[in-house]
């Protein structure tokens, strides 16, 4: 479980996150939604330690990530898998070398054990056939799947996904959403996904946090979001023609 308590973060005195508190549970896909520039990515990067919060606490199963030493933080980071918006695959390495990288770095496994794990992870994302290719030789959707395979290589307890569907067609986006949901359930991972894709919201949003101008405005799930009365949230949802025309919005 991840607990975010009263997080504040500003850049050059411009507040990006204002007193945000929320809880992300294991075995669930927790979505952080909001318009571009609302602070979703800053929140995600602050939780994983790429930004240091101005104030507040972040607890990973009760361990305070903000106040712990660098050494302790390194250990928590090894329990984290992250899927970046652009994939962030190492372009010097092949697909299988990308997945093998955390195993080479953090395990003392034999070559055979590592090979088996890499094969398993690539199979899990249906990319065994692309093992020898470089990231530049595969499509955007495949890159995202490789990034997921790399993120789960070390059996993470926490999975963070920053805009996993950006730049993908709706069908490929569904494949990525399903994969994230399956992996979350299969390994009981605490998954946090940043998205502004309303298809994802309805498909995998078991717990949803809506952020508006750096503040948390609403919290709920995919069932309650359609009945929500929050004005900013409704404005956000009404931007989707599909949702409007489907008659789902009450």
């Amino acid at each position, binding site marked *: 479980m991840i607990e975010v308590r009263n997080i504040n973060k500003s850049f050059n005195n411009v507040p990006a996150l204002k007193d945000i508190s929320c809880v992300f549970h294991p075995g669930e896909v927790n979505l952080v939604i909001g318009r571009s520039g609302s602070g979703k990515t800053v929140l995600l990067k602050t939780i994983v*330690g790429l930004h240091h919060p101005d104030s507040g606490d972040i607890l990973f199963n009760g361990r305070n990530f903000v106040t712990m030493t660098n050494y302790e933080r*390194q250990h928590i*980071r090894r329990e984290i898998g992250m899927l*970046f918006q652009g994939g*962030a695959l*190492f*372009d010097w390495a092949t697909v299988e070398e990308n997945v093998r*990288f955390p195993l080479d*770095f953090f395990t003392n496994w034999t070559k055979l054990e590592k090979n088996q794990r890499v094969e398993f992870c690539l199979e899990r994302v249906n990319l065994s056939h692309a093992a020898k290719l470089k990231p530049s030789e595969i499509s955007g959707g495949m890159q995202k799947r490789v990034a997921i395979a790399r993120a789960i290589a070390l059996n993470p307890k926490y999975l963070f996904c920053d805009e996993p569907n950006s730049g993908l067609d709706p069908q490929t986006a569904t494949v990525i959403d399903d994969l994230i949901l399956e992996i979350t359930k299969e390994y009981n991972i605490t998954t946090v996904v940043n998205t502004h894709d309303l298809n994802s919201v309805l498909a995998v949003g078991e717990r949803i946090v809506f952020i508006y101008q750096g503040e948390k405005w609403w919290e709920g799930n995919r069932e309650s979001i359609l009945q929500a009365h929050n004005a900013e949230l409704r404005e956000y949802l009404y931007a989707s023609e599909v949702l409007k025309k489907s008659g789902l919005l009450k």
Partner: protein
Amino acid sequence: MNFFYLAGQYFVFLRRVFAKPEKQKLYLRNILTELWNLGVGSLGIVVIISAFIGAVITLQTAYNVTSPLFPLFLIGLGTRDSMILEFSSTIVSLILAGKVGSSIAGEIGTMRVTEQIDALEIMGVNSASFLIMPKIVAMVLIAPVLNILSVFIGIFGGFLTIEATAVIPTEDFLYGLTVEFIPFYVTYSLIKSVVFSFIITSVSSFQGYYVKGGSLEVGRAGTRAVVYSSILILIFNLILTQLLLA
């Protein structure tokens, strides 16, 4: 103020770069890769430039010697010492600052803007050490080799020019290469090439590592890497010459 901030940030960065490696085997593999990329990759340009500069130094000296009192063997001596003292260490380093420096800043900068460095950090890898230390170590190891190679190629270029143009007798040129040889000049030259290669790789990596923005900023970081490395090379050339030859 900005200068002091940058200098402080540079030394903090170096501290991270030279932190104890987490997985030495992977670092060793990276050093070997960088030896190939940076060292062998620079071989061509070093050979071509050294050969032509050696030839030109020889010809310029020969054509400017008009006094019959000037011993002709001094042309060989001049070529040798010019190559050892200045060209093969300083000028080759300036050329490498352009080639290697912009390449390193571009590579590291692109990794920064495509979030590859963030990905390493989130995994718990010291990205500065993992990506940059092998480059610095490889370049510091290969630079003296390139330096010595450049000296020999430059002198050989001079020799071929003498053979081709017969501007002075070959015997005089060869005698000049052996006379009044001061071994410390080689040490001085090697020290300079080691210091300059450290400057090139560390400054260029520093520029790339802290890139913010997109491709435009990566390009600017490449330019800054070359400019700052070149200026520092010239400053340290002066300092080292005063310290070592005074």
